[in-house]
């Protein structure tokens, strides 16, 4: 069978503590095509974040294989510079370094990749401007608000124009209005750049609004229970939220997650 752009095959992950083994993921398989926007939803502890951390090669799977753009991760072979720069990761918390200014934080991936920072100065300014933060470029993280920090965390993940963007509930701590604005901004970036996006969220409406497909997961151990194609057309705006089809998708996913929660209570 031909492999997708990103293939996760029969992956399990067990975390070892001093006394216990915790099975975070059990035999999951997922695929992501180039340029796709896919969300992963599910209850807390279902291993959503673990999946993208494995794709980003931050942690290794206990079993199974992960292939990204034809390269199957191997514990003994580190990713090449080219492969590393294909990946972009946006954390749940902004994770800005307080010893760097806003702009230095945005440029940090380029510094690590050994790029000439001057060449990227214009891009950094453009991204900062895009999220309304250009005037705070020389401020330190302690001098800006939580929402502003989150925006910086988002553009830091994009500064090197990655082919694959993994987003771990990036807007979880933001207010509704900022979240909607940034979601629309993200859609625009996705359409303009053709980046493959794997988006982790708790928010079902957000997943349906943004994604072409949604993976629904259950927990203890984490497993994929549904792969739902969201057929709402290419033009995604906030107006979609009022439409019947949008509501049906949300209900379908919420019912799936609800069944999991109910089963847990029983």
């Amino acid at each position, binding site marked *: 069978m031909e492999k997708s752009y990103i293939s996760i095959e029969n992956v399990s992950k067990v975390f070892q503590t001093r006394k216990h083994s915790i099975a975070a993921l059990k035999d999951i398989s997922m695929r992501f095509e180039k340029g796709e926007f896919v969300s992963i939803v599910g209850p807390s502890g279902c291993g959503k974040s673990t999946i993208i951390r494995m794709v*980003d*090669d*931050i942690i290794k799977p206990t079993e199974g294989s992960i292939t990204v753009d034809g390269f199957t991760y191997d514990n003994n072979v*580190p*990713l090449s510079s080219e492969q*590393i720069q294909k*990946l972009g*990761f946006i*954390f749940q*918390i902004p*994770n800005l*370094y*307080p*010893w760097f200014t806003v702009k230095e934080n945005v440029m*940090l*991936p380029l*510094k*690590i*990749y050994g790029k000439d920072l001057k060449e990227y100065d214009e891009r950094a300014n453009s991204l900062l401007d895009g999220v309304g933060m250009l005037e705070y470029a020389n401020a*330190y993280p*302690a001098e800006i608000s939580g929402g502003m920090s989150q925006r910086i965390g988002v553009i830091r993940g994009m500064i090197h124009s990655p082919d694959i963007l993994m987003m771990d509930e990036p807007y979880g701590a933001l207010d509704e209005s900022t979240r909607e604005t940034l979601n629309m901004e993200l859609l625009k970036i996705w359409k303009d750049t053709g980046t493959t996006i794997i988006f982790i969220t708790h928010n079902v409406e957000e997943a349906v609004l943004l994604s072409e497909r949604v993976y629904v997961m259950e927990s203890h151990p984490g497993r994929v229970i549904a792969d739902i194609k969201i057929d709402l057309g290419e033009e995604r705006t906030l107006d979609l939220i009022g439409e019947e089809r949008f509501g049906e998708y949300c209900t379908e996913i919420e019912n799936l997650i609800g069944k999991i929660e109910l089963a847990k209570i029983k």
Partner: protein
Amino acid sequence: MENYALKNKPIMRLLSTGLPPVVLIIILLAVWQIACIAGNIPKWMLARPTDVGVALTADFKELLPDILSTYINIIVGFLLAVAIGLVIAVLISSFSLLSAALTPLIIALCCIPMVTLVPMMMLVLGTGPDVKIIAIIIQAFPLVNLNSVVAFINVNPERLELMKSLKANKVQTFTQCIFPDGIHGVFTGIRLASIMAMVTGVASEIVGGKAGLGSRIIYFINFSKTADAFSCIVYIAVLGILIYGIISIVERQIKW
């Protein structure tokens, strides 16, 4: 609003932070002076602050070589202790085998009062400044080292995860994340080491030095010149305050 503006003026800041300790010291000196006079305590037993003040200026020229000797030994020993402590901390936090081998030894060094070893070291190395500098280094570097290692090992895991995500190498991870994250722990070690360097430096001179303020204190006490002995203590305190102040000023430059 006006009050707030006034408080932010440098002169007002200086008065609000600098004045209280100065006033307290003046009060303590006054109590000391009055107690000496009221209790009719002989000057050879306990010098009066005014006598110490006179000795400070009168003895300065005579004490200058000793002041320089003590200051140079302590500063050189302290700076070397900071450098050695930091380098070993970087190695220990990077290589677990080295940590297992070195940590018990460093803790042991920290616990042995170096003053007890100085006479034995003098048998081998003589009574020159190198013995005192070595004693200071051995006693002070473990404090920089242990505090730095704890700071480096306990780096914020989320900040470290960003480095893992970017696939930063060991040097990049240390310079961009671990070191700045643990800088305040390093400064705690440096601060403690400065105190230890002062104590060890002067104690080494008391135990077996021919030069330096420590040996002069013993000399003056032997001749019941307590005012002169106190003037030596004041010169030692000045160095201690200077080093501590410089460390504080440097640490204040860190914005996080």
